[in-house]
């Protein structure tokens, strides 16, 4: 076997032009596939991070049945011990309590149905960063009794800083809820839908408004590594009483976004499929060219006594060695480009940028560096390469020496 490797190595090393062409066909194939995939994976991740960081977090815990029927009656008791327990679970970065409900917002002339979100101002800074969305006024300080109003809602209601907002609603267990709150800040939510209807206040004031003292509608969980989401969700569910709580990840809470990512991914796979097809035919063409130009050489080898099986084996080893070099070079060559695109994402402007903003995302197309797609793409290109080897090797095995010698 060692001798076969030696012979294959000699063929590779002593015909540099042919070797370079074959390696280059694999290199560019994988290089392109990796860059394309890094942008696809990066974009989906950007979309997911966008929605997670904008509002929902990675995982949420609710009272059982809350997500189906979002009423205050489905809220659960605020227990510090539960939060501490969840915070101690591996991969959990932070636990953020919220009380969310609906209300009628009024400023005299105008009234609108809105969403009230009672937050822990300190903890919320770890995920959704409402302070960074401020376009006017200040973030909550201490036990502020004020509210932050989203910009489109403020426009609709004609609200300005220090104006008063009246909220009316139905509270916990049917109690009536009403309150008057000063506007301490105007925030711009990236998602236009949220920007039309959100009002933030501190958790104690929200609980007071709804008469839901020491109660929460959700615990929002932020994770360290989103790739371990399923495991983390499972670990959290082990500490929860499933008759009292329900646990959902961002995908379950945002099925439309997941669908959008899936349909985009389907398009991405079609693109990759087309790329693979081009790669496959390109590599096949190169390998056929390589074997065709050596037809006479193979004919001589068989004529003087080399078994066709041995020849096929040496040729396979030769091609696999070149394929392996091409794959390693493709991985190494794509790394700096992907690293650059991770750091400097492609930024959209004009109409394309507006489309992104409508969906509430920053108009960028970042790349993502992930071992999984490096392994997957390298394996796919290797399989394509192996498939492409079959035909030329098979044709050499069927070679008629007399015809080959005449070629």
């Amino acid at each position, binding site marked *: 076997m060692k001798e076969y490797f030696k012979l294959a190595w000699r063929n590779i090393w002593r015909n540099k032009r042919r070797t370079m062409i074959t390696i280059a066909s694999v290199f560019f194939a994988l290089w392109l596939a990796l860059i394309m995939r890094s942008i696809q994976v990066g974009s989906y991740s950007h979309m997911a991070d966008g929605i997670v960081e904008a509002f929902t977090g990675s995982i949420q815990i609710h009272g059982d049945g809350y997500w189906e029927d979002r009423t205050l009656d489905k809220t659960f008791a605020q227990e510090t011990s539960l939060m501490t327990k969840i915070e101690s679970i591996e991969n959990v970065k932070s636990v953020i309590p919220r009380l969310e409900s609906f209300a009628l917002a009024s400023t005299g002339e105008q009234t609108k149905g809105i969403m009230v979100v009672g937050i822990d101002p300190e903890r919320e800074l770890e995920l959704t960063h409402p302070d960074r969305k401020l376009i006017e006024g200040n973030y909550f300080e201490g036990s502020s009794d004020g509210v932050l109003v989203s910009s489109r809602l403020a426009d609709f209601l004609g609200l300005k800083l220090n104006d008063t907002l009246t909220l009316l609603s139905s509270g916990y267990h049917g109690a009536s809820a009403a309150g008057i709150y000063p506007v301490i800040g105007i925030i711009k939510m990236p998602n236009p839908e949220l920007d039309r209807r959100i009002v933030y206040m501190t958790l104690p004031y929200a609980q007071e408004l709804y008469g839901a003292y020491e109660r929460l509608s959700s615990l929002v969980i932020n994770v360290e590594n989103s790739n371990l989401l399923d495991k983390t969700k499972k670990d959290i569910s082990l500490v929860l009483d499933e008759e009292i709580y329900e646990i959902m990840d961002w995908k379950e809470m945002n099925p439309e976004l997941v669908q959008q990512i899936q349909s985009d991914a389907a398009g991405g796979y079609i693109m990759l499929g087309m790329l693979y097809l081009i790669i496959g035919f390109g590599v096949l063409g190169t390998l056929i060219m390589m074997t065709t130009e050596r037809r006479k050489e193979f004919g001589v080898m068989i004529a003087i006594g080399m078994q066709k099986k041995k020849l096929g084996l040496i040729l396979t080893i030769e091609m696999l060695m070149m394929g392996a070099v091409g794959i390693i070079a493709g991985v190494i060559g794509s790394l700096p480009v992907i690293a650059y695109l991770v750091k400097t994402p492609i930024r959209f402007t004009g109409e394309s940028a507006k489309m992104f903003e409508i969906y509430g995302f920053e108009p960028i197309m970042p790349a993502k560096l992930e071992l999984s797609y490096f392994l997957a793409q390298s394996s796919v290109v290797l399989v394509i390469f192996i498939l492409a080897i079959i035909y030329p090797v098979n044709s050499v095995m069927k070679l008629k*020496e007399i015809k080959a010698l005449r070629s």
Partner: protein
Amino acid sequence: MKFIEIRDLQKIYNDSEHEVHAVRGIDLSFEEGEFAAIAGPSGCGKTTLLNILGGLDEPTRGTINIGGTNVNELKSSERINFRLNNIGFVFQAYNLIPVLTAKENVEFIMHLQGRPKAERDARTKELLEAVGLGDRLNSRPSKLSGGQQQRVAVARALASKPKFILADEPTANLDSKATENLLDIMEKLNKEENITFIFATHDARVMKKAKRVIYLEDGKILKDEVK
């Protein structure tokens, strides 16, 4: 029984329009140690005869018996093995393996036979020195002249210690000096080591050196002349 016996050999090539009768019922035999030439004009069937004799092509009809083995009854892989251990080839266009050096080209066939490295090295050196290329062991074919390449091809043909050597127009691409040199080497090997040489040629210089000349015309033996 003779060393090589050919009986009623016929080869017909079929293309889409017509049949070409390259060899028409030849009966021929060779003794061990012969230095024979198959001669005749282009298209007379000498290369076809040589190819069939070497097991590179199959006859349409007839038998070839070499040292007791009926060559045309062998399976493809058996025929390759038979060639490896019994026949040496010298081709018109040298047909050396371009990525291998002169030494490696000669060694290659012994490699296929599974001979030990020490034996391979010694015989390669000995053969290349015998053909006057002891100083060009590490030259690749592209760095050698036509005559030098053909001498490497002769050394390669001898490397496997074959029972006989088939040489198809070995001098066709050589000048007269290189031709004379090559023929002298082959004649010497024939005389000193009793190696059988069978040439297909229309080169008068080869015919002159040969001890036996078989003239072919239209796929048939016209004359079999022993000197």
